[in-house]
């Protein structure tokens, strides 16, 4: 997190005010900012804007500016409303673009065909290597959690949650964190092997 990520329209003073509004403690404010950034990036991405950094920056610019003008009691709710407005404007702009060009981006176009089979094989090799690097507990968790599909999956997750003495939701996030670690490891492995 740095001031550079917030757009050029925000002064250092406004940015500091935004951080102080997130949390008076500088360290905790940085964590809160990063958490908020992740949530907003997900929000924009799931709204159909894969390159969401610009929209995030725009949201934070507006929030920082408004903070210097008015008293905000619930900063989270305030930023949510700003983000929804930013998304609305982006959708409007995109519709205009689509009507000008006469085409929209299709999911299928996102898949390049070239060397796909080789890359897939490489991903498999990397995944096996990355699995070996996990400690036994994490490896068994991820392999057990993601092994089943459909009805079998539900039963397995309930049983696992009971074994761990936790809720299925907590277990899901816990398994996902290990999976995310694996995914990062595979991405790194593939970039090195490239």
């Amino acid at each position: 997190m740095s001031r550079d990520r917030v757009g050029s329209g925000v002064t250092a003073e406004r940015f500091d005010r935004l951080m102080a509004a997130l949390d008076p403690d500088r360290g905790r404010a940085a964590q809160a900012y990063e958490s908020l950034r992740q949530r907003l990036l997900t929000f924009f991405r799931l709204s159909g804007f894969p390159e969401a950094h610009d929209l995030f920056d725009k949201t934070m610019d507006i929030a920082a500016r408004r903070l210097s003008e008015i008293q905000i009691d619930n900063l989270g709710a305030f930023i949510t409303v700003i983000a929804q407005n930013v998304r609305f404007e982006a959708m409007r702009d995109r519709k205009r673009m689509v009507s000008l060009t006469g085409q929209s981006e299709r999911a299928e176009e996102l898949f390049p065909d070239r060397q796909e089979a080789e890359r897939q094989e490489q991903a498999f090799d990397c995944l096996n290597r990355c699995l070996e690097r996990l400690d036994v507990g994490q490896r068994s968790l991820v392999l057990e959690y993601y092994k089943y599909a459909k009805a079998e999956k539900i039963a397995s997750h309930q049983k696992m949650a009971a074994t761990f003495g936790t809720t299925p939701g907590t277990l899901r996030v816990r398994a996902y964190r290990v999976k995310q670690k694996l995914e990062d490891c595979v991405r790194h492995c593939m970039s090195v092997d490239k």
Partner: protein
Amino acid sequence: MFTDYLLGRLSAEDRDRVEREYLADDSLHQEIIAVESELLDSYVRGELSVDEQKYLVGNLGPAVTERIQFARALGRVMGTLKSERLVAHRIRPRWTTVFSIPLRVQVAAACLGMVLFAVVALNRWPASSPRVPVPDPPLVAPIERRVPTIDAVLFPVERSVGQQESVTLPHDARIITLQLVVSSHDYPGYVAKLDALDGSWSRTLTGLHLSQNAAGERVAEFQIDSTQVKPGDYRIALSGVRGSTEDLVAGYVFRAKTE
């Protein structure tokens, strides 16, 4: 609700509510991206409709290709695990599929009786040989394993007592007694799987039962002839057996004694 949101099945109102919830709560945000990842697994398994596929994949972001490659690779690993489990089922002795369950119980009881008779007879036998015979074949009828072999090695991942799951077997004694001290489970029977960490040796010990020792501990005990194992590190996985089901259990420690 998160699944419906991620597959574009919600009304605008419900969608707005879900968004406000996860924007305000980081734990919900974590859960929604975990659900998204599971849906991607469903996508590569071909479980989503065409519309759902387009909606999900269209929102994956710039790393879409890598994420799908990863999901496919993970699906392949899981497929391998499942096929290992199928093989484990397939290699069950044929008689287990021929005999009915009541008949198996009777056969098992008869086998157990014979073994007990043999144990009593051996105890009365003159001590011409210091070796104690190790029961190689299972004491009771083989149990249909619901859990793949690989799970037995990897699971359980947590123990309430201690963290160690490997044990070093000594090699200077002829008889090694392994005790599994069970703290929080009570099954009619137990199965222990012992594997050399280098993969060179493996044995499943069935028909174990808990008994209380002098210290008041509930212990499942078994013996191994040291000539049958190499010195080195071994891993133990313990399963509780109830009826025809087996559950890998946590909450135990093990210790090795020599004679």
